[in-house]
């Protein structure tokens, strides 16, 4: 099957800053795809190349198997939801939504009808005559979505779509976006720096770091099998152990990552079940989060391991801060990283 979007060795530099360094990428039709990374990692540049707002210095951009590297945005079958929504302030909500049809010279009656349909899809039918300034952040977001979808694009690009919303609204919109994508069956590509957002919404995630894709995998794959220390600590939280300590614990000279919730805190003395990996340390502090507690255990001067402990009713009380404890985990739970 032809990829909906393909980047081939795409590079882009701004002056001496390399924003994107020979990135190749294939996104399947109908996929919900996330570009995840910290700011300046190249994820937004990548999105701009797909939308056509920017051209790669070298390499190619293909949509549906067709090279569109030099095709301007207005001739690409791709639409974008902007981070600041970019709603036209001098037009009503309905005019904003119908804009894509207006510039394609669709008749006014048809335009009104389809704009009304799109507004119904995002549940804003009562707001058609308002101005964008009279809407809340979440409403603006939905107008931007309706406007981007009215041309029936094969691909929808979303630039930090939830970044400007408050936490509760963000969770609602996550579910709404996911539902919308499944109903429409089109490819969604969204840029985010929020790993939680990427894990909960995307089918696959490309983790960007310093202009390159560090790992491309399903959310579960990223979380359970991070390839590098960067991915391990950027996606969820992870303890990354390297150097002599790693060799001391595992017997192999390679860094590894272990998730806080997979570590068990045990008393410093006493028998251990066979086959567990262990590290002894001092319990520094315990932060109570309700459903779980987060403990920090100092192994040596450079290493502070974080342990998440479920606070179920039967959980044994923790020793007081300052006590010597032993951390234990199954060897299979530790992920060996590329050094």
């Amino acid at each position, binding site marked *: 099957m032809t990829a909906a979007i393909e980047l081939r060795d795409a590079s882009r530099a701004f002056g001496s800053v390399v924003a994107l360094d020979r990135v190749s990428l294939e996104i399947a039709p109908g996929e919900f795809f996330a570009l995840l990374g910290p700011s300046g990692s190249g994820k937004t540049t990548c999105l701009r190349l797909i939308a056509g707002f920017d051209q790669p210095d070298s390499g190619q951009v293909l949509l549906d198997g067709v090279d569109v590297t030099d095709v301007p945005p*207005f001739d690409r079958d791709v639409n974008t939801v*902007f981070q600041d929504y970019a709603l036209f302030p001098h037009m009503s909500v309905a005019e904003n939504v119908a804009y894509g049809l*207006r*510039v394609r010279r669709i008749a006014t009656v048809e335009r009104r009808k389809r704009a009304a349909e799109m507004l119904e899809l995002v549940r804003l039918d009562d707001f058609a005559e308002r101005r964008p300034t009279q809407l809340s952040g979440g409403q603006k977001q939905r107008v931007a979505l309706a406007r981007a979808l009215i041309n029936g694009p094969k691909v929808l690009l979303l630039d930090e779509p939830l970044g400007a919303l408050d936490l509760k609204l963000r969770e609602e919109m996550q579910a709404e976006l996911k539902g919308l994508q499944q109903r429409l069956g089109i490819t969604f590509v969204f840029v985010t720096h929020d790993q939680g957002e990427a894990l909960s919404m995307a089918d696959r995630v490309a983790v960007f770091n310093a202009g390159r894709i560090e790992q491309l995998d399903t959310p579960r794959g990223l979380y359970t099998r991070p390839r590098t220390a960067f991915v391990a600590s950027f996606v969820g939280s992870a303890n990354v152990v390297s150097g002599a300590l790693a060799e001391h614990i595992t017997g192999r000279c390679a860094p590894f990552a272990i998730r806080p919730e997979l570590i068990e805190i045990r008393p410093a003395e006493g028998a251990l079940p066979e086959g567990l990996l262990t590290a002894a340390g001092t319990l520094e502090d315990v932060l109570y989060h309700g459903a779980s507690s987060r403990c920090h255990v100092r192994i040596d001067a450079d290493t502070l391991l974080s342990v998440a402990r479920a606070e179920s009713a039967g959980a044994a009380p923790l020793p007081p801060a300052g006590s010597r404890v032993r951390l234990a985990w199954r060897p299979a739970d530790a992920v060996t990283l590329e050094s």
Partner: protein
Amino acid sequence: MLRAASRFLHGRNAFYVSLLLLPPLLWLGTAYLGSLFALLAQSFYAIDEFTAKVVPELTLATYRQLFTQPANVDIVLRTVAMAFAVTTACGIVAFPVANYMARHAGPKIKALLYVGVMLPMWTSYLVKVYAWRLILAKQGIVAWGFDAAGATPVLDRLLATPVVGGPSLSSSYLGMFIVFVYMWLPFMILPLAAALERVPASLLQASADLGARPGQTFRNVLLPLALPGLAAGSVFTFSLTLGDYIIPSVVGAPGFFIGMMVYQLQGTAGNLPLAAAFSVVPIVLIGLYLTLARRLGAFDAL
């Protein structure tokens, strides 16, 4: 002492604000609005034809004189036509410059352009006008340039145009128009650049993203959002042209303009009521223009 004053003012916000506003309001109220109303009142007074004394009796005779004497009507129409032409030309010339300054230029070039736009305003107005008279003269540098390019027939053809043409650029309405456009261009560029700077780049990208070609993006997004700037700039260029009396008397054809009439009527002719009536014309026109601009939605994006 200061401390006591500060303590007294603290918490008495209304008093504090009125203290600050009193001097400018006094100035605006008496010196500015007061003289404007005095002017308006003058235009409703009559003048005694024999003694040339102003008779403080309310009458519409002056306005009747203004709007029925063909020479006066000609002057008003001529001035308004020139103001329209100058405003339109300023808008067309200023837009690309302002757009480049606001959206494309790097910080250094931008600063250079802003200085470049404002620099001519630091020079004496009279020096510039007389310089233009020489530039546009029959043996001036413009004529010389046309000659050197072998394009003298083009210039001659231009000057042969009825109404706007004349014996030379410096004695034609065409030349006057050029000088007006030069003089008022900064007043159009600056507000326009300020308006364009407030248009987020993402709006233009969104327009392109939705399928608009650059021309459509310009018409549907950039131009409507720049309208407040264009409106502000055109109020400057329009009213400055309506009121100016130096440029029409130094450069151009001999026909009179409103400003020249006001100057002459209140001076040598001593007909203050008619001078006042003439100067009411630009005020009314600008008022109408602003109302129209508002109706057309020029200020909706503010």
